[in-house]
């Protein structure tokens, strides 16, 4: 006779529970990641086949890119300004204040531009994607698309994916540019750096590699935001509460993936 489940639980080795939990966490993460990859492959395949939805894509570009400009300008400008303050005080300790223009530019182009833009846009556009597709899902609009013989991936995901991939590098560039302006303004007007030295240092410092690694990162983050946002929308269940949950998950997951992939890409691209 098999023992009742209570005794079975008691007899398990001490570490079983935490190891089991860790294993479950890992398998959950991997299957979730795999599901996102599958959606990405379906999206890529669907990109190559008609119908090509130019109007919808432009509309998504407006939502994803154009509407994100104000928040990117504000964050970028202040990030640059803070960097100027921080870098100036630390660099002053070994009389390297003249270098700050270059250092800040490289920091922005390679790291802060793509990563901070990615995190901001994940909060803005990624959550909106999850909420919109999630609402369509719980109100049977996704079923309706299927019944009307229209592929939801082609109709909903492809335009968002293209918009994300194209607009993220642009937003990231804008972030870095406005960040440089912010740091220049603070360095010159508040910290009294010589404007000519600042600019010369900056141009001398920046290399082509700094620019393109930043753009590649931004592109990948655009893919992450659009795919995670769409996927979370598609798996939404259970009414308004479900939509809220998916929206949160989309932001958390996209941000996590962005930070993980930022490390991987940095290691690969260095």
């Amino acid at each position, binding site marked *: 006779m098999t023992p009742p489940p209570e005794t079975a639980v008691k007899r398990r080795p001490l570490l079983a529970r935490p190891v089991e939990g860790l294993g479950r966490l890992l398998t959950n993460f991997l299957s979730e990641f795999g599901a996102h990859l599958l959606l990405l492959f379906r999206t890529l395949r669907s990109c190559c086949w008609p119908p090509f939805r130019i109007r919808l894509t432009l509309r998504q570009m407006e939502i994803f890119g154009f509407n994100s400009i104000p928040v990117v300008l504000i964050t970028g400008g202040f990030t640059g300004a803070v960097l100027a303050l921080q870098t100036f005080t630390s660099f002053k300790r070994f009389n390297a204040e003249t270098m700050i223009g270059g250092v800040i530019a490289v920091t922005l182009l390679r790291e802060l531009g793509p990563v901070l833009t990615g995190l901001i846009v994940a909060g803005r556009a990624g959550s909106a994607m999850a909420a919109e597709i999630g609402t369509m899902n719980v109100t049977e609009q996704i*079923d309706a698309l299927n*019944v*009307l*013989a229209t*592929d939801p991936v082609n109709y909903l995901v492809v335009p968002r994916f293209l918009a994300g991939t194209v607009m993220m590098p642009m937003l990231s560039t804008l972030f870095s540019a406005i960040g440089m302006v912010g740091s220049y303004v603070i360095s010159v007007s508040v910290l009294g750096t010589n404007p000519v030295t600042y600019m010369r240092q900056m141009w001398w410092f920046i290399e082509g590699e700094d620019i393109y690694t930043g753009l590649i990162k931004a592109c990948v983050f655009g893919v992450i935001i659009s795919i995670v946002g769409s996927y979370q929308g598609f798996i939404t269940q259970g009414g308004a509460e479900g939509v809220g949950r998916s929206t949160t998950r989309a932001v958390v997951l996209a941000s996590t993936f962005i930070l993980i992939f930022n490390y991987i890409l940095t290691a690969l691209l260095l």
Partner: protein
Amino acid sequence: MAVGITITDLHKSFGANHVLRGVDLSVEQGESLVVIGGSGSGKSVLIKHIIGLLKPDRGSIEVNGQEVTTMAERELKELRKKFGMLFQAAALFDSLTVGENVAFPLVEHTRARRSEIAERVRETLTLVGLPDTEHLYPAELSGGMKKRVGLARALAMEPEVILYDEPTTGLDPIMADAINDLIVEMRERLAITSIAITHDMVSAYKIGHRLAMLYQGEIIFTGTPQECKNTDDPMVRQFITGSSVGPITSV
């Protein structure tokens, strides 16, 4: 040509919940079948299988002799062009206007010119009794109007089969009757095969040539509305008279 549908031994579980336990049902060409049953009896699940939105665990569904359950996505897409479906809450695309909603399948699947599509949209909206509403958004419509627009969208492609998911649920009795009239009109005028699921008996008697009752994942009764009214089956009797006393217990 209208379409006949045969369902044999259909099973579907969601986790531990065994929703469909061997459904056998057939609909002839041009026939209007109404599936009745309580909430949670699996009516919606059944209808979603017919159009391939859900895959069964076991069993077969044949539409015009073609097996639906094993179809590839591309074949399903072709099959779905013959179907129209009215969803419970209409499922209109809320980012599109009424006109764009009705035009949606035409824009997607035909090469018709814009003027032809506009003309067809106008005709279809007139047919469901909502002329000159093209420019409105779904959020501006009442529940009954949404259902009519949903019906117009389902009819736009001149389908051979229409599936109605609770066409009268959530409507006032007069609006419900108007929708019933509309469904009967579609049935008579366009000779479309139709399957409706409902728990509204007034509607079921009115729109169905034949009624089938789904209970605990199986079809326990089929017959004409008259046979349904005269049946001795205690479960059917309890359901059609709407009594809480009987073999069916509300959980």
